């Protein structure tokens, strides 16, 4: 139980850390950017809710059925940290190339986290989802190989949402 509270609090601490980092770096509209990314992930989580199960979290961590804002924050942390890292390391790189790096970083960071969440029983998959899986596991784990394909697919839809909606706001506030 203490482990769950540590997990939940660290998700909150991480987002606060990323927010203050963005503010320190004079990143424009940091709060709005985080809200847009949170909204993008949350829409996705609600949409795909029948496929996943989020167990063992404290009751305040749930929004609706087993949609958890803490899990959403976890995704936001990974997406935001990956994008900030790539944008800092490869500042002059064209957006098209950076997009593929975002997907690579997000997949590399998320895969072990998803494996840990599965093994600790926080995350589970519904039978309708496991029925579409091939039964091949990531070596040395009990996690399905499909994670490696699905994470970049999810990111490939959420990153454009984040970037495009931010652009819409920037256009109208100019």
């Amino acid at each position: 139980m203490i482990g769950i509270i540590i997990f939940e609090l660290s998700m909150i601490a991480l987002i606060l850390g990323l927010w203050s980092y963005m503010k320190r770096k004079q990143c424009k509209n940091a709060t709005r950017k985080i809200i847009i990314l949170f909204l993008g992930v949350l829409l996705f989580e609600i949409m795909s809710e029948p496929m996943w199960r989020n167990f063992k979290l404290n009751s305040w961590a749930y929004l609706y059925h087993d949609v958890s804002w803490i899990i959403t924050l976890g995704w936001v942390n990974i997406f935001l940290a990956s994008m900030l890292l790539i944008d800092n390391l490869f500042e002059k790189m064209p957006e098209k190339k950076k997009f593929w790096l975002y997907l690579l970083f997000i997949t590399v960071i998320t895969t072990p986290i998803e494996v840990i969440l599965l093994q600790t029983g926080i995350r589970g998959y519904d039978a309708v989802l496991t029925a579409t899986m091939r039964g091949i596991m990531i070596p040395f784990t009990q996690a399905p190989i499909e994670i490696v394909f699905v994470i970049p697919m999810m990111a490939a839809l959420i990153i454009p949402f984040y970037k495009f909606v931010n652009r819409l706001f920037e256009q109208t506030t100019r």
Partner: protein
Amino acid sequence: MIFERSVITIAIVFLLILIKIDKDSLRKFGIILVAVLLFEYFTQALWLNKNLEPWAYLYLDVSWIIAIGWATIILVSIKIIDLYFSNLSERRRFFFYLVPITIIGIVAEGVVLGLGIREYSSAVQRMLSGIVLWNVPIEALYYIPVFMVLVISFTGYWETIVEEKAKPIEENKAKKGSKK
């Protein structure tokens, strides 16, 4: 077979019309199709696409016929809004796009449900309220706009990238033209 051929014919007819209005329509259609396929693959466990010809499936029950159907609805709706509301800001048009897409999408969903092509998985059925709107679960009023927000954003993002890449080429062409 009639359904598959009808979808292909409708997509070709609309694309030919749209290409006359905007020469980049085919590229936009391609980008939308990629987004729809990503989404269909990701959520394949939620929906069942049944009774289509074997060549209409890409992987498990992810169908490219259903995907081009959605892509046509989306592109046509975007073009209609761009045509009639060109004076509105992009942000407002973004929300306006969702109106025709949701209306046409609900009608199309009703058609595929009625034809027995579309079914929902047990996990989705557990979540449904049981209220229907023209044979379609009322939840579609939420699911279709959410799906579309992600697809339209994907299209807008990649269109910007493609246009930015094309800018220097077009500027060079214009410079060469003015030198002549």
